[in-house]
């Protein structure tokens, strides 16, 4: 099992290392513990969202509403805290419940209507956007309880950001669900062959519902961390996160056609994007050129990854020939 895992993510892991080595050489500030924690803080939200996104992608679905799920989640939590004076802990729990409910609604519509997830969640994105703006009227809500803000900004022992702990915890939970539980297996089964899974007694509807529900759950956690980090809630905040998560997952080898991918891959994908952005920013390169470089590096990364997988198979073939003779 471990071997298979290692092989699958080998290509992208190499790309990540190559990037780290490169940036470490060209800019001395890059390779510092502080900067490492910077990067993890910067990608914590997209990383956590990507865990849920990976589940959905593996089942063969997609959730384009995660971006405005974030917006609605943070706006609701913010209003609860500031307008209604709800204690932050309670507000967060309500926010998480809201996230789960949105996810379940997505799942329910998809499961019951058999409409393509892409278009269901695209419509949901528009609806959530409207709702979130309706709540705030486009204005910002800010200045929250210190202990709440600490979640996103403070460190433990002056070094390790609290958000990193959350991030790691979510990765572990996500990996556990996917690799160790019945449902993880069902996610793969559905994504690979929904008919066969159904005929094997997998309750496809329930499992799909679960995937979207979990996606909403993880997204709301990511949203809360982001709110704490920004110390300000605004309806436009989540815009584009569906794209970022999709990019991270797909770069990390999670197939947009379902059935393939791992949490480790998705997180490596997030790290590649995060390191690239951070490294280029620290190098202080012209931002337009940054875009071009980002695109080219992503392209090289995935092409290299795919080709190295193909090559791996070839190498194995040659080995078999030799063994046979």
């Amino acid at each position, binding site marked *: 099992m471990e071997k298979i895992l290692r092989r699958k993510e080998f290509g992208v892991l190499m790309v990540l290392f190559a990037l780290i080595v490169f940036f470490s050489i060209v800019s001395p500030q890059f390779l510092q513990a502080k900067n490492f924690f910077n990067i993890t803080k910067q990608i914590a939200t997209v990383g956590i969202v990507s865990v849920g996104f990976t589940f959905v992608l593996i089942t063969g679905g997609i959730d384009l509403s995660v971006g405005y799920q974030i917006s609605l989640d943070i706006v609701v939590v913010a209003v609860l805290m500031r307008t209604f004076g709800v204690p932050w802990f309670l507000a967060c729990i309500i926010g998480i419940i809201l996230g789960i409910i949105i996810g379940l609604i997505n799942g329910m519509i998809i499961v019951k209507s058999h409409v393509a997830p892409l278009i269901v969640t695209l419509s949901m994105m528009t609806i959530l956007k409207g709702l979130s703006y309706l709540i705030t009227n486009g204005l910002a809500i800010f200045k929250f309880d210190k202990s709440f803000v600490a979640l996103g900004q403070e460190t433990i022992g002056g070094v390790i950001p609290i958000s990193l702990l959350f991030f790691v915890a979510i990765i572990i939970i996500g990996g556990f669900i996917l690799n160790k539980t019945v449902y993880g297996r069902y996610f793969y*089964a559905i994504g690979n062959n929904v008919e066969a899974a*159904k005929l094997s007694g997998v309750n496809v509807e329930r499992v799909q519902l679960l995937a979207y529900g979990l996606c909403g759950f993880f997204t709301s956690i990511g949203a809360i961390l982001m709110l704490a980090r920004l110390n300000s809630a605004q309806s436009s905040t989540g815009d584009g996160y569906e794209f970022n998560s999709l990019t991270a997952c797909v770069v990390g080898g999670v197939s947009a056609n379902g059935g393939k991918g791992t949490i480790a891959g998705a997180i490596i994908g997030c790290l590649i994007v995060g390191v690239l952005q951070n490294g280029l920013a620290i190098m202080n390169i012209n931002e337009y050129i940054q875009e071009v470089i980002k695109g080219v590096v992503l392209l090289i990364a995935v092409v290299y990854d795919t080709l190295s997988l193909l090559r791996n198979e070839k190498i194995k073939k040659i080995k078999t020939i030799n063994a046979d003779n």
Partner: protein
Amino acid sequence: MVGDTILKLNHISKLYPGVTALNNICMEFREGEIHAIVGENGAGKSTMIKTISGAIEPTQGTIEILGEIFNKLSPKISRQKGVAVIYQEFTLIPVLSAAENIFMGEFLMNGIVLDNKEMGKKASELFERLQVKIDPKTKVADLTTGFQQIVEIAKAISKKAKILIMDEPSAPLTITEVEVMYNIIDTLKEQGVTIIYISHRLEEIFRLSDRVTIIRDGCYVTTLNTKDTNKQEVIKYMVGRELTESYPERTNKAAETVMNVHNLTGNGVKSISFNLKRGEILGMGGLVGAGRTELAQLIFGSEKIVSGEIIYKGKALTVKNCEQSINAGISMIPEDRKRHGVILDMTIKDNITMPSLKRISKRNVINQKKEIEVTKLYQNSLEIKTPSIFQYVKNLSGGNQQKVVLAKWLARNPDIIIFDEPTRGIDVGAKQEIYQIMNNLANEGKAIIMISSDMEELIGMSDRIVVLNKGRMTGILEKKDISQENILLKAVGAN
């Protein structure tokens, strides 16, 4: 009028990760002959065909067509050289019409525009030659498997091929259609076409072929003149030991009734009534499209019942989905193995444990040790040939895939098992093993429903046979009344 060598394989090898599919094969085909190729599942028949058709590149060796030597071919070159293929897997595009599928790759044109009229006309002519009524404008998705196969044949012969390769063309066909196909093949032979014919149905080989080549474990074994040999000999070469093709006796006799089906209607079948007893094998016969698969889906709970009821273990069975029927003790081995039976891109282990996953889990956390134990148990008892239980199912041969399907249901220990075409595309050796497993299950007191289009097998295995015609039940034959004639009479709807 069998003539010179038209096609020659020189030292062909094909290696896949962990598998040597073809090992240094040398053989030749003569112009105008019908050359059968037989071998166990996974022997490498399809792989060999694919090197000839250019679908895959051989790792080593050359192919000689009409004296011209190729290191590798492409589908296009191969076809230009006059090779046409009916693959084991469907190569039809479901959303396109029958006519469009027939001319796929070489559409008839009227300037830059598709000449749909001409293609429709040509397709109609082809279907006439094949003596079938198919509207060329019908979408392939709307045709039954049998008719789809006929479209495949039409597609292959539309190319004016010099060499026609047929990889198990009869597998999805029923008796009447097979007869039609025999006639087509005879006609083509008269026209001088060389035919390479692959099948697990040995009677077909003896009915059709001039010569037969046997392949075992990717190696060439021998080539025999068909008229100089017999089934026994061919089987011996195939499996490397003596093996008799027979239907094993069962000791246990049918006992109490476990299921009563009353006036079952829905999913294209109407007013079906029969009962099913523990320890029996209840056969289901009928022509293609008779609705046997549909009936099986109703009983298994994967399709909705419109009216009528099923009494199971004394109570009305009301299930909403397969999960519930499986929990109730019913399981089904579907007819389309690759689409419904297995998940090709998952491992053998994952496939076998899929229906029983919750049983080997605690609070939804999988007990991985137990999972491997269970998999190994069934891998050994069914003798699934594989280097590892972590192998992807897509890399297994058809027979071994079918064993994986069997294993996954045996691991669930059901009371009723529905086998829909359980031996389609499976070699004689594996067939015997599957018959043996079915018998053992019946002896253990399980109730079995077996749908089969293989008349011999249906007669040989069944205690009773339900016959369907156009979605209606036309009769039920008791053991003493079972005969090919009686089944066919009822299957065509005559009373």
